[in-house]
């Protein structure tokens, strides 16, 4: 559930998603809480995937290890364009701690921290 990766560096990335009416996480024309979290997780995956791709490595399997401090301010409507910023806070071994902020226009729809466990081949 990531339409586009607007930008990506070693420490941060920006992704986008337009909420389609047939999105599995849409309920009553609103993009639900699990959808926001899944979008953040897939944005983090795209971010990690970019890194391995840039280094010429094969992408790794990733798992959500922990979701923390998740705050959801609003549920975006169908047709909304999400803009999500992912920041790598720290990487310890094969665990990445990321911070995510999802915006709809100027409004912050959701923020959270996530620990992604990257499985070595």
């Amino acid at each position: 559930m990531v339409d586009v990766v607007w930008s990506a560096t070693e420490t941060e990335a920006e992704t986008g998603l337009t909420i389609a009416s047939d999105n599995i996480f849409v309920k009553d024309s609103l993009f639900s809480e699990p959808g926001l979290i899944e979008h953040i997780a897939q944005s983090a995956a795209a971010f990690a995937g970019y890194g391995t791709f840039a280094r010429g490595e094969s992408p790794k399997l990733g798992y959500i290890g922990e979701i923390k401090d998740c705050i959801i301010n609003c549920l975006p409507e169908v047709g909304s364009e999400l803009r999500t910023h992912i920041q790598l806070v720290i990487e310890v071994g094969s665990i990445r701690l990321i911070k995510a902020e999802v915006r709809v226009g100027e409004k912050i729809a959701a923020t959270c921290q996530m620990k992604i466990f990257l499985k070595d081949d």
Partner: protein
Amino acid sequence: MEKQELIEKVNSVLAEEFEVEESIITPEANIKTTLQLDSLSLVDMVALIESEFGVKILPADLAKVQTFEALYDYLAERV
């Protein structure tokens, strides 16, 4: 930062973050056992140390920093 001041700050921020009594944090105690850290909360500790002291515990060094004493020494050399 004086070493004693450093020790007191380390103990205070760790005790607060991981919700343990400062009294159980003793120099020879094992960090993971004392703070009941698993692999995920270990990441929190490394992130906390980096944000509070501006010191990044390198992955290669993490294996050597097993006790609070080792952590104090590691930070004292870098702060």
